[in-house]
């Protein structure tokens, strides 16, 4: 009869495990180690905000190498609502990641003592595989400010594999292993957010918004802390993990990799629309259509002279130059949505892009 006791105990344990795990507490604790990043002004089509992961008590931050980090007026909001300036300590294109540092004002004599993720330890104990339930925390869409909490999403790791994606015309620099997620985690401002497991262990950093160049679908992914990249430093090729990059960057020991040949820099669009805009007379000539070539994609879409182009696939078109720049992202045969103003009415038309005519 005595033998029953452990079994009964196990039964009780079994039902206790059924009780819901306190995700709210796990999320709240992780939130204490994340910051909201803000830059000045929006670079065309890119956001001037993002998310960062505190990786040292003194205020070092891991984030994605977003364009706004190039700007001035860099500010961040700590989870308690305090606002600080920060500077970029290291950017590594091979990881598409950056390490930042809080700039304390001179009046503050005591160094910061912030909660943080120990990236090195987390990378050593990293346990993640397809099927792992995770939570993603980020300031997507700039929903939160100051002491407001990051957005929390749950997701499942659907695959661990190499990243192959594009954003507009640019190939992304990082080609190492990433965690593919089944939730729409990679939104504007999400890049640099944290992916944690159900116990709150840091697994990786959310990447930027990217579109898969084969399926044309948006990719939701994160860089695991132990993901590797080959970095060429002073002509010598070495392999580092993301965690090693962070560790070295914090200690001022990271040397930026040699610039790669930029084979993706496209000078001219590869597609033809048949739209003839009004002559460019000022720097920002409004994109009024002057004429439409017969039988061209624009003619088939029903565009007419005097239409004003407002958006191309949701991106604002401020001038004829912007339209031309945006077109560089597309390949012949792709369909785009063009929103126009005709008279007082806004209309959207769909246009299938044609290859450039032979001259």
């Amino acid at each position, binding site marked *: 009869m005595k033998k029953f006791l452990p079994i009964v105990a196990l039964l009780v344990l079994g039902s206790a495990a059924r009780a819901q795990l306190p995700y709210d507490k796990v999320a709240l604790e992780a939130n204490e180690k994340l910051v909201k990043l803000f830059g000045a002004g929006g670079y065309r089509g890119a956001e001037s905000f993002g998310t960062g992961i505190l990786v040292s008590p003194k205020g070092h931050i891991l984030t994605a190498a977003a364009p706004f980090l190039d700007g001035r007026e860099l500010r961040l909001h700590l989870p308690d*609502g*305090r606002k600080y300036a920060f500077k970029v300590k290291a950017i590594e294109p091979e990881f598409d990641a950056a390490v930042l540092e809080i700039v304390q004002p001179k009046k503050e004599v005591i160094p910061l003592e912030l909660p943080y993720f120990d990236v090195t330890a987390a990378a050593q104990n990293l346990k993640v595989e397809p099927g792992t339930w995770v939570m993603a925390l980020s300031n997507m869409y700039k929903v939160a400010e100051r002491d407001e909490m990051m957005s929390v999403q*749950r997701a499942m790791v659907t695959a661990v594999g190499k990243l192959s994606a594009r954003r507009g015309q640019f190939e992304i620099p990082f080609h190492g292993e990433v965690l593919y997620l089944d*939730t729409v985690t990679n*939104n504007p401002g999400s890049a640099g957010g944290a992916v944690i497991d159900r116990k709150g262990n840091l697994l990786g950093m959310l990447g930027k918004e990217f579109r898969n160049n084969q399926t044309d679908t948006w990719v939701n992914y994160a860089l695991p802390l132990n993901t590797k990249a080959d970095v060429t430093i002073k002509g010598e090729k070495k392999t580092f993990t993301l965690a090693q990059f962070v560790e070295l960057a914090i200690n001022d020991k990271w040397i930026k990799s040699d610039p790669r040949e930029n084979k993706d820099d496209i000078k001219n669009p590869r597609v033809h629309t048949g739209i003839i805009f009004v002559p460019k007379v000022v720097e920002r000539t409004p994109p009024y259509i002057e004429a439409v070539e017969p039988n061209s994609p624009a003619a088939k879409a029903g565009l007419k002279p005097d239409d004003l182009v407002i958006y191309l696939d*949701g991106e604002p078109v401020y001038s004829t130059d912007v339209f031309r720049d945006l077109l560089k992202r597309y390949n012949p045969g792709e369909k785009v949505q063009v929103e126009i103003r005709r*008279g007082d009415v806004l209309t959207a038309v769909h246009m299938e892009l044609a290859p450039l005519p032979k001259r």
Partner: protein
Amino acid sequence: MRKLLLITPPLALALALLGSAADPVKDAEVDRVKLVQKVRPAVVAVFMKEFQSDPRGRIAGGGSGVIIDPEGYCLTNYHVVAAEGMTGVTPTFACGLPNGEMYDAVTVGCDRTGDVALIKLFPKKPGEKFPTAELGDSSELRPGDWTFIMGNAQLLGTDFPPSVSFGLVSGTGRYSDFGFAEHTDAIQYDTAANQGNSGGPIFNMKGQIVGLVYGGAPGKRGAFNTGIGYGLPINTAKNFLLHMRAGIFCDHATLGATVNTQISEEGDLARLVVNQVLEESDAFRRGLSEGDELLNFAGREVRSINQFKSALGVYPKEWRLPVTFKRGNERKETLVRLMSYTPPVRKQPGQPGQPGGPPAPPKPKAFGEGAKFFEERKGFANYYYNRLERDRVLGTQKKLADYSSVAGDWSWTGTFDRENRGGGFLIKVEDVKNPGDPKETHPLVTLQLSLADYKLEPLKQGLTTADLTEPPYTGGLLMALYQYKRFLTLGPKGSEGDKCAHAGMEPVYFMPVSGPAPKKFEDVRVWCEAVRTEHTDVPSKWYFYRADLNGQMPGTGPIPDGALVAGEVYVDRAADPCELYFGDFKPVDGRMLPHRMEVRYGDKRYAVFNIKAQQLK
């Protein structure tokens, strides 16, 4: 060997049990399925019908809803019931329940700013009850909590079984302004919600409604469901629920002051500083002024504009709520009445009914059973339900004390307490002595306090505001007593131009008659239903106690359910009203009559009257 055999069967059984119990994933799934089955019958598919293209009615759009009352009251989004052009409401709907039946429904009330509406389904057979879901507490939600959404996603459920999706709360207390809609204190979730889910319930894992789906947030990819969706917290809907039940087209509120965040130095926490106060606001009269630091609003700490907007954006106009502010080193907590705030409908050129756009579509036609219960009137979504609720409140009061037969002279005597003063008092509210004499048209109100003697003929021409607000520091106690008697004896007929209307639910604060001030205003808060009156250009509001809305109140003594317990009388609309608070109810000649009346003005007590004898003729 024998022993082992004996042990084996129970062990095997235990192991089998263990096997099932130790699979938490499977068990969680079973629990989840059970929960969905439990709440499913109350989830509604709301359909609009148009009669232009098909005289029999064609389904033209729709959304989701959830039934919260066995009588068929159902919550949904305002934008689901909004008539096109956003100026009115669609009067009637067809509502499908998961039992496969289609029911007629009518719009009852709505809150445009909060994007919530109350509709009512009509049973097929009289007396038939509807399945309901329980209202939860959205303030308990935390980011990371599981929730599920049910509703008519993409209007797929043409035979009405709702879709279910499951996900996490991504954020709470969110403020976001999309231009076409402003969401305050919103729930943010990662759960899939699509068009058609609008107005549908968000359930917690106890199967309680914690929110309503606003619809997905439009992402820059032009698609919905981009991993972010917003919901109305159910507690906001609860604040407006009795307003909506009373057919009101609800207003949100403003404090009457604008605020700014200020950071003195980098690394410091932000402060919320008042930069302008409207002079006609209650906040101004309570002493809020430029430069004051706002600390707390209605029990919520406010340190950013978003927090303030979320704390404020969940309340109807005219509610009195505690506000804490700081000037220098001095902290002050006071009650402030919120002002009305109705954002203008953002008219876009090119939209139907707007300049440059096609003509507005014809007004939606009322159809079915609901058409009998729809009455249009300015300020109301459906006036029929206002009259219904108002008459219910007045009917309950009449059961407690029917004054209709005593519309003559009233007099009260007893003792009064004022700061450092007291003594005997006499109050007389006399009606016209000789109704046959056309010259005698002035009723008379008299108040005698020890040596002082005040009189008012409330209907006399040419009275100044000073006359009307006698005695001093009461805001017009004589006028208030006249209005009180008129309302109790004449009911809705005592108001001009049908202005007697149900005004929803409001908090009323009963300050202790003796002893120290309450630690928190919340401790003396009583939830009441309000009825508005207006006579001789003096608007008043009367508060009726509802036992089911209140827990046990310390120190107030038993208040009869449905009794008139307080009133506010505005002699001057831009000044503080005279406030009356009634207590110590005892039966006299078959009527439950108050034996204590406290008179307050601004944030101070004028006097407490202990009524010893009253004559009602």
